[in-house]
């Protein structure tokens, strides 16, 4: 039997990524291992850095919307919404109610699609190969609806400063209602398959624990923060668009482990479904774009607006110098800030837990690197 203080062992550096099936994009994680236990984790990002924020300075406001589509490429509508709200606040534009309702419907459907992607990929990271098929089947339904409404399955470019590009198609409401029923069944199917599965519980319960104060200090937000018991949701605390008129629940975890973060996202799917149903009830006919020039020229000034992305708090700092191109656009990407919490979560974890913890943070590298 050897005693630790008498054996001089070297930590083994295990490199995961940037090409690795489980790192959710081009992300590189160097783990310092002592046998099977992780001593330190050094994340390396920047493989997907495209200079989006700098590019925004050379594009007109309408073109910047397309750049935002591609930052978090899984939750496009929510990203567009973040930027468009910033521009509207700077220009003091009030969006017509119907446009706001359609925006929220699409944003919540986008949230469901993003969480479905998380449910599927998290399960397959842990070895369960079936939920990803169910999740993507449901995602296809949502993307078919997006294609009918916005013209594209993913990079929609549908929101405009002041409203929407065009009104929803004539069969929008019945189609969304049918979709909601299918989504409810689909999410429940994945829930039944995964949530209380003994092996899944063994892999996620008690793994990657982070407590509330540490999470806040690290800048976590969204379900990653709510899993630790902090009931902070931008839709609840700083509501925007038509969220004040919707009744919903914000799921909050208690233990701060991977399972809590996973279950918060699952419950949020159900909440989003109910929010979309409420929007359909309250929505009425009307204009979908505020009157204004096609080329936006906001007045000089700056504005900081944050919204609830599926991954957390996306903030947009927009500085305008009065021309038709922004002077500076700075994005606070939720995944970037969530990654800071990786290190506290990895304390005392095993190598196999590293994949579980990283998956539970639900990062999208397009947003982390911009």
């Amino acid at each position, binding site marked *: 039997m050897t005693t630790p203080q008498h054996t001089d062992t070297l930590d083994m550096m295990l490199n995961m990524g940037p090409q690795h099936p*489980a790192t959710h994009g081009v992300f590189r994680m160097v783990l310092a291992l002592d046998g099977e236990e992780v001593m330190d984790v050094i994340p390396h990002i920047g493989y997907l850095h495209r200079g989006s924020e700098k590019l925004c300075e050379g594009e007109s406001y309408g073109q910047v919307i397309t750049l935002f589509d591609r930052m978090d490429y899984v939750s496009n509508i929510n990203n567009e919404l973040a930027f468009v709200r910033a521009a509207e606040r700077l220009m003091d534009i009030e969006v017509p109610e119907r446009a706001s309702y359609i925006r929220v419907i699409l944003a919540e459907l986008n949230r469901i699609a993003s969480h479905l992607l998380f449910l599927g990929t998290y399960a397959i990271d842990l070895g369960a190969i079936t939920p990803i098929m169910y999740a993507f089947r449901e995602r296809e339904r949502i993307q078919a609806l997006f294609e009918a409404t916005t013209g594209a399955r993913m990079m929609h470019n549908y929101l405009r400063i002041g409203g929407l590009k065009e009104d929803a198609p004539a069969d929008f409401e019945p189609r969304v209602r049918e979709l909601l029923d299918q989504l409810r069944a689909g999410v429940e199917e994945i829930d039944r398959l995964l949530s209380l*599965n003994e*092996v899944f*519980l063994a*892999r996620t319960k008690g793994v990657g624990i982070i407590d509330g104060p540490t999470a806040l200090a690290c800048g976590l937000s969204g379900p990653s923060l709510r899993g630790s018991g902090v009931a902070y949701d931008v839709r609840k605390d700083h509501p925007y668009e038509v969220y004040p008129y919707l009744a919903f629940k914000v799921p909050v975890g208690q233990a701060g482990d991977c399972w809590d973060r996973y279950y918060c996202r699952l*419950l949020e799917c159900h909440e989003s479904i109910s929010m979309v149903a409420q929007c359909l009830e309250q929505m009425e006919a009307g204009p979908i774009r505020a009157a204004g020039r096609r080329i936006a020229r906001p007045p000089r000034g700056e504005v900081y607006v944050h919204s609830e992305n599926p991954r957390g708090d996306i903030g947009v700092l927009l500085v305008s110098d009065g021309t038709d191109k922004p002077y500076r656009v700075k994005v606070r990407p939720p995944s970037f800030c969530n990654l800071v919490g990786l290190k506290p979560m990895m304390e005392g974890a095993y190598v196999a837990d590293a994949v579980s913890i990283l998956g539970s943070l639900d990062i999208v590298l397009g947003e982390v690197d911009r």
Partner: protein
Amino acid sequence: MASRPAQLVLLAVIAVGVAAVFGGFVFVTRWLGAPQELTALTLVQFAVALLALVTLLAVAGMSLVWLERKELGRMQGRPGPTRVGPFGLLQPVADAGKLLFKEDVAPGEASKLIFFASPLLIMVPGLMVWLTVPLGPTLVVRSLDLGIFFFVSISVLSIVGLVLAGWSSHSKYAVLGGIRSAAQMVSYEIPLIMAILGVVVLAGSMRFEDVVALQDGVPYIALLPAAFAVFLVAGLAEVGRTPFDIYFAESELVGGPFVEYSGAHWAVMLLAEYLNTFLVGALAALLFLGGWRWPFGDLPFGAAVAVMLAKTYLVVAVIFWGRATYPRLRLDQLMGLGWKVLLPLSFASILATAVQQFYGWPAWTLTLLSVGLLAVPIALQMRGQGRPASAYAARLRAGAVAVAAQPRPARAAAGADGASAEEEA
């Protein structure tokens, strides 16, 4: 990809070929009988039997490839292979062909001799076991009196090949995978053997045919459900199937000990894995499900073989079902399951069997004891993990922070605001 008529022709050729080999195997084993003296004819007999056996096992392995992909596909809501051959039946042929045509690469630093010998070291013990495992009333190369003992002692040898495969690849991932796989397999050998020993105690013989014959009335799964459960779980771990496939988990170790292999060597190791799965299925059918006899008793040769194969494929289908459903266990959880749950359970099961046999109690007492033993870990698991988890989930659902809806502003006011909001630059 060949055209549909060409595929059908190929399928027909394969079917005829397999039938011919199978017929040859049956002829050699059944009508010529077990040879008593070593003559030239005996050697020819053995050679034909072995060749036929290897061919049939290769076909069986490939049929498992097809079954797994179809079954997993259907469970995931998709059809599985459909294009290569009718119902995708030629998919394994295409896979094998693709793998055989690939370039044989070895890492520069790898020890070439051991690197290329390891797949053989994994495959050969898996093939050797089939000398004594019968698939029908006389469908076996040589029926040994110590058949079960032979299987147990030979099957352990493939662990050596696995470790050498990982070590000789000269890659961090492969070494880790090889060591993990060795640890996993060694720790699950003992519960596996104990489960089989329970059956041996009941049957009083180590010959497979005797075990099958003694299950005429009641199959041993009804008498020893705990042993069956241990056998199945330990068999899963031996083969390296989900939930115990951590050592070559794609998302963690990207292939484990096999990560550096390509082409024909990879095909050999893949086939070895499927053959082992088939072996677990066949053994479960023989030892616990009554083989080719229960519940029909004496059947004509063809029907008996069909019953045996049906039971084997049923167990194999359940194994694949587990792959579709479960995530992977972490290595320490896997070892904990093996040493802390399966090992005591299998020892207790043998003790119960021995006690029942010694005192001559009726059979149903053994069933009762076995079910009781099996209920212990299940109840502990539900109490320790399952119930608290579902209660916790219900708590989270109930404890979600509710946000009330505010009343919307009046319609007229909202319309006026919408129309008046303009910004002329």
